[in-house]
């Protein structure tokens, strides 16, 4: 017997131990007690892989896709996934921002820095310009979120985008719970929930005729908590208002509204300084802050996991208007 271990021996030993390990993992998974978690993809890895698959499918099958980018956390995660999908190449499509004109300045700043950092083209559809031209009327309640549909469709048409990525998630709303991953829109941008294509396996059917376009939702299956865990894991930068900060606010409709150019307190509404953060980022005039001391992403993960309110219920006045608010807007071509 040789005292020297040959490289073949080592390789053989290694192969044997690998085979034993994988057999053990297999038995564990078959026995129904779950193998060791290290051997399997975590739910975040699975969701990430699914999203990247969808992003690549859309880029491969469509002529001119674009990604809706508001600077909100879901669109930031979408853009991060796109950078991973095409690494080391550039993200091969422009980003589209529908600007309500009611922005948080730090979000616009973040948007511009991000576009610069990734070398992307930014297309802006401006609600203000439509109002100035008299093509949209300001609502009595001052909210501009519902007004985004017209500039969105206009930008899609003018730029001939045939696929538009959105960060919509099915856990956000009961209308979104019925949304497809690839969702066909007609010439008017309308969603027809009664007439959707069945979506089978991981085979996505993006065929469309002239004038139609497709909305693609690669993170459909993510929850708010998944988004935050992923932001933490990937160390993704977000606009600072997602984290706890001191802000001048006043109470309206059971939410804390920021004091700003487009969001002024009425005489009977007292302005106070509070430690708050935002769970969603939208039109400043209708997006509320929540009281929070979550200053870091880890704090936010804990807070979201323990939250007893849905993110839209807690922070979006426009979704409180009626039980079917989101459904009605989606049918008209909203995100």
């Amino acid at each position, binding site marked *: 017997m040789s005292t020297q271990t040959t490289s073949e021996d080592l390789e053989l030993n290694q192969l044997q131990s690998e085979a034993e390990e994988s057999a053990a993992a297999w038995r564990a998974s078959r026995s*129904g007690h*779950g193998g060791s*978690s290290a051997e*399997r993809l975590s739910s975040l890895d699975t969701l990430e892989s699914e999203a990247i698959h969808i992003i690549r499918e859309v880029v491969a099958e469509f002529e001119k896709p674009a990604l809706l980018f508001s600077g909100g956390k879901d669109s930031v995660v979408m853009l991060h996934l796109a950078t991973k999908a095409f690494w080391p190449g550039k993200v091969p499509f422009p980003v589209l921002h529908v600007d309500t004109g009611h922005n948080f300045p730090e979000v616009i700043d973040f948007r511009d820095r991000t576009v610069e950092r990734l070398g992307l083209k930014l297309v802006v559809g401006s609600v203000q310009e439509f109002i100035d031209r008299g093509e949209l009327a300001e609502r009595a309640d001052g909210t501009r979120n519902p007004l985004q549909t017209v500039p969105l469709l206009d930008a899609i048409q003018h730029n001939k985008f045939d696929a538009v990525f959105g960060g919509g998630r099915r856990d956000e709303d009961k209308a979104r719970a019925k949304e497809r991953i690839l969702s066909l829109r007609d010439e008017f941008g309308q969603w027809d929930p009664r007439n959707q294509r069945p979506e089978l396996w991981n*085979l996505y*059917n993006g065929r469309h005729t002239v004038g139609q376009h497709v909305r693609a939702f690669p993170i459909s299956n993510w*929850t708010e908590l998944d988004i935050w865990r992923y932001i933490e894991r990937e160390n993704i930068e977000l606009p600072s208002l997602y984290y706890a900060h001191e802000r001048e606010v006043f109470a309206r409709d059971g939410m804390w509204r920021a004091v700003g150019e487009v969001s002024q307190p009425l005489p009977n509404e007292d302005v106070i300084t509070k430690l708050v953060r935002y769970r969603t980022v939208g039109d400043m005039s209708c997006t509320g802050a929540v009281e929070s001391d979550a200053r870091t992403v880890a704090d936010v993960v804990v807070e979201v996991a323990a939250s007893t309110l849905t993110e839209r219920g807690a922070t979006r006045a426009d979704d409180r208007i009626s039980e079917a608010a989101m459904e009605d807007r989606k049918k008209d071509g909203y995100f």
Partner: protein
Amino acid sequence: MSTETLAAGLETALPTTLFRFATAGSVDDGKSTLVGRLLHDSKAILADTLDAVARTSADRGFGGEKGGIDLALLTDGLRAEREQGITIDVAYRYFATDRRSFILADCPGHVQYTKNTVTGASTADAVVVLIDARKGVLEQTRRHLSVLQLLRVAHVIVAVNKIDLVDFSEQVFRDIEADVQKVARELGLGSDGVADLLVVPVSALDGDNVVDRSERTPWYTGPALLEVLETLPAADELEAELESFRFPVQLVIRPQGALAPDAVAAGLDVEAYRDYRAYAGQITEGSVKVGDEVSVISPGHEPRTTTVIGIDFAGQSLDEAAAPQSVAVRLADEIDIARGDTIAAAGTVRESTADLYASLAWLSPKPLREGQKVLVKHGTRTVQALVRNVTGKLDLATFNVEPASNLELNDIGHAQLRLSAPLPLENYLHHRRTGAFLVIDPNDGNTLAAGLVKDHPGDHEDERYVI
């Protein structure tokens, strides 16, 4: 719970795995209530949603004088559905336990049941079929089970609901269980190692055997529904273990100097990546290691063999990757490879063929006719196809295959198609991803059918299966 305790809890709970399941049944079977119960008892419902449901329940006088929450309202969807009191479409719900994150495809039973069940089941690791304990196995149950067998769903759980309304009678349960087993035997479900079958007595309304085992069914010694869902292996785990690596190429990553500015800023070696070329896709089954021999399958070429020299994922170099990971693969030889080609473990793929024998679940109101031209989407390739003939249709009452010359909405049948280009087709029985395809209408682009590849006649492998 203090923030610290919760943080500690989160720490130990990670990482959870993902499990997808679907529910099939009708509102009458209490499906909405069961889904509501799972969401409610696993604390997936947040306070504002619960308040809204409680208000509506009270407005409608639910539960009489003692009141209560109508859990079915938790799954109430679109306005049109509320107005008509029906569920139109598959709805997706999300909840998590310490062990798993769940994606639930809630498939309505009344309208377009086959379409909805096929859709929900195609991505499901498990399907829960609801039966009303007072009614037992109905035609709809047979339909659901036949669709699940067709799609080879790995785990089928039959929940015998409203067990409280039959006074928790063991006899009633055992009779239904025997009927279910009989249908399953007729279908070959649960007997061939493809699927496993479990029958559970539950009361969705009261929560018996949904999250926790019930004391009111002492004669039932099996697990509660959620326990089952927490412990069954997911299809991804099983697919990753398969020996046959399959990787349909989605696109070629070839930046040619257009490198990502953020990657360059982070120190990417621009020179080294000037001629970078990798094939991007999602591994559909099996696993691959650097150094593995692979075959590249493209139409019009003999399979070409080469070696994997790199597996990249967003700046990381991996030694190994497995289904369902999305990666980019680099190969030793410069081979012309494009979207639609398949990279597979060397020598494991049969010759491509343009003759497609398949089972079809017809999902469109437009019927399938012989001689019709359609599109077939298989993996990452879409080709034209001619429907040569329809060879039979499944009679869901008898499970016999009857002669047929067309297929209509909700029919399950067999057909032979001729493809405009050969594809690396594989039997769906053994390859859930590369054995599946879509039939698409070339005129309006709508999805017409879910297709499952069968062996050619003469290959006798799947003769023992009805469908």
